[in-house]
């Protein structure tokens, strides 16, 4: 605990689910070495952990690191100290959003559009979801995707109308519970 009784950044992160082993990291670099998208991160996964331990909250949550985690879990599978870097990274995403940091990437837009599709239909309506995503970010980019879209559609892989699932209301109860903190 720091002097004013507030939890330090490290304590805050360590208390996230499955993140308590962050103190045991030996900075070996297997996580960064295995990470599928590491070359795009401002600070690769190992550095993210080092920065949490050093209390560099602002620099970290303002950077584009953590937003590029695609949950491939290679880091978690290979960590010699059985730490779960992917959990820590996603936990940091939550903290960033809760505390009002604006992510410098389009990741949250995609996550939110995806989640909206689920709550609306109970499943991902690919055509609608992609359309909404491009309209919110870069409409012209959608044109680049046209050949792919036509290909998918002609192979019957992209229905133009949405289908809702049965029991969508029950699904939404589950989602609401989890969104408001859930049963811990």
């Amino acid at each position, binding site marked *: 605990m720091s002097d004013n009784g507030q939890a330090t950044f490290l304590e805050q992160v360590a208390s996230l689910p499955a993140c308590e082993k962050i103190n045991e990291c030996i900075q070996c670099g297997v996580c960064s070495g295995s990470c599928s998208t590491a070359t795009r991160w401002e600070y*690769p996964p190992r550095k993210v952990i080092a920065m949490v331990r050093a209390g560099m909250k602002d620099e970290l949550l303002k950077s584009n690191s953590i937003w590029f985690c695609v949950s491939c879990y290679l880091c978690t599978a290979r960590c010699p100290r*059985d730490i779960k870097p992917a959990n820590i990274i996603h936990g940091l995403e939550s903290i960033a959003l809760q505390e009002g940091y604006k992510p410098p990437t389009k990741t949250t837009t995609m996550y939110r559009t995806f989640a909206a599709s689920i709550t609306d239909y109970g499943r991902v309506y690919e055509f609608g979801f992609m359309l909404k995503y491009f309209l919110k970010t870069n409409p012209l980019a959608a044109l680049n995707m046209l050949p792919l879209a036509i290909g998918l559609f002609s192979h019957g892989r992209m229905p133009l109308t949405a289908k809702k699932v049965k029991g969508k209301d029950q699904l939404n109860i589950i989602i609401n519970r989890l969104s408001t903190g859930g049963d811990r």
Partner: protein
Amino acid sequence: MEPKIGVYICHCGSNIAATVDVEKVAEYARSLPSVVVSRDYKFMCSDPGQDLIKKDIKEMGVNRVVVASCSPQMHEPTFRRAVQEAGLNPYFFEMANIREQCSWVTESRKEATEKAKALVSAAVRRVYFHEPLENKEVPVHPDTLIVGGGIAGIQAALEIANAGHKVYLVEKEPSIGGHMMQLDKTFPTLDCSACILTPKMSMVGAHPMIELLTFSEIDYVSGYVGNFRVKIHKKARSVDATKCNGCGTCMTKCPIKVDSEFDEKLSKRKAIYTPFAQAVPNVPVIDRKHCTYFLKGKCRACEKFCERNAIDFQQEDEILDIEVGNVIITTGYKLFDPSVIKEYGYGRLDNVLTSLEFERMVNSAGPTGGQILLKNGKEPESIAIIHCVGSRDEKYHEYCSRICCMYGMKFAHLLLEHVHGAKVYEFYIDIRSFGKGYEEFYNRVQREGTIFFRGRPGEITDVAQTPEEKGKLIIQFEDTLIGKQRRLPVDMVILCSGIEPQSDAQEIAHKFNISCGKENFFTERHPKLDPVATMTDGIFIAGCCQGPKDIPDTVAQASAAAARVLALINNGKVEIEADTAVIDESKCSGCRVCNLLCPYNAISYIEKDKVSRINEALCKGCGTCVAACPSGAITHRHFTDVQVLAELEGILV
């Protein structure tokens, strides 16, 4: 005789006195039943302290002594000896631990003093009921058994044999030498391993006091310190060692080729073979699992060409029955098999080697005559050496294997020497160069041009992402000192695989009645103060079977174990503590429940008397049988019901 108790409260400098009001405790003790004198003193274990006790025994007729001080583990022998010197049976002494169990763990002075009073009261009540007991003496057989003929076993054998005592050295391979024989140069001096080992092997082979039993294993062990009976299984070599002169003709004539274990399967040996040219003894064995004669009844080429008629297909395994006083276990290690680390590609990708495979390759007496070659026969231009493979990893072994940083750097040096213009890269997490000359060696290797990257590689792949990577092995890693993920293409990768205990470690432990730890290394009696002894008297351990270590430490431990054995042999006898269990045979019903429960195999069932009997020398006084006996037939000397209950009363009152 009426018990007259003397109580002595030790200040232990300030260790006890700073927390416990020792004078109050002494005053309290004075009021206890049968206490005739109660004193407090600064250091009871010192000479003047001990003299206080002796004086009171002689002048006041004190015949029971309680010392309230430190743990019995520290000074019970000291005070027992003092009591004995004053003419009293040492078992009339009891210690109250008011330090480790009181002053060191209690903050409040009031509470600590009350607790010390309770502990003293318990000791006083207990000692009232103590009986005079005699330690048992058993003789020590002067012969020694050493299990495992690597450098540790060889060193220990020579130490004991040179002291004039007989040693049986048992080794399961056809020759002694162990892993050290496979190495090329040893760090940090770059001594040629075979050059320093073979003279010792030769001495062992020629020593009149060493009976060398190779191609042999341990079948069964029984007995206790000073008196072990061991059954040794001597496997049939199919060669008469008394006739064979080691000419090697049989090996050249044998048509069957088998992967050579000694060369880590990088070359072939014959079905009749010695594992390497400098084998001791230089007598081949026939591998009956691959020999044509034993499989199909044909061939017999070795027999045809042997000038001495030394081939004996009818030779049978032998069982030897020996008696020894002590045993030293030096079974060594095996290398961690990195095939389980899929992302490193060992076994799947060409040119990924383990450390022992590389040792054989770089060795001038090895399968490539010392040339470093890729699978395609060319020399590599770039080589990556990966540290901590299978070590420091909760998925495989949590421990550090201690030798890999040093041997990894040794490889770098050898590569720069053997391959002109080679680029050598070391991938590490930490550099552990802890020994004499080790840091200087690290410095040297850096000076010679080895490039060090701090970062444990994520994976080794042959999937090229750029034209430069085609046909290479690519190390994907984070260069943590820069903070960027990088890909480095190389020709060859050497994995610094960790070391593990042998796969039969638990079996050996069970045979000799010792324990294995969490990772199957043998458990030493105390990791700092007694690293070569085990909890079983007379059984010692040395070398990598106790834990990963380099050659200097292995040799040191082997000599240490030998010294312990020589001490026992020199004394000629050993004292067994008297607090053992004894069965009242008139009460024993012969149910044999105790037989199975005894963790030390100390209880046997006597068929003709239909009762169980405890071997006092094996009994460690654990009390399990005492508690379990449904007839209440077993008494625990020095821990009788009366004594234990009196002690409890003292605490509670």
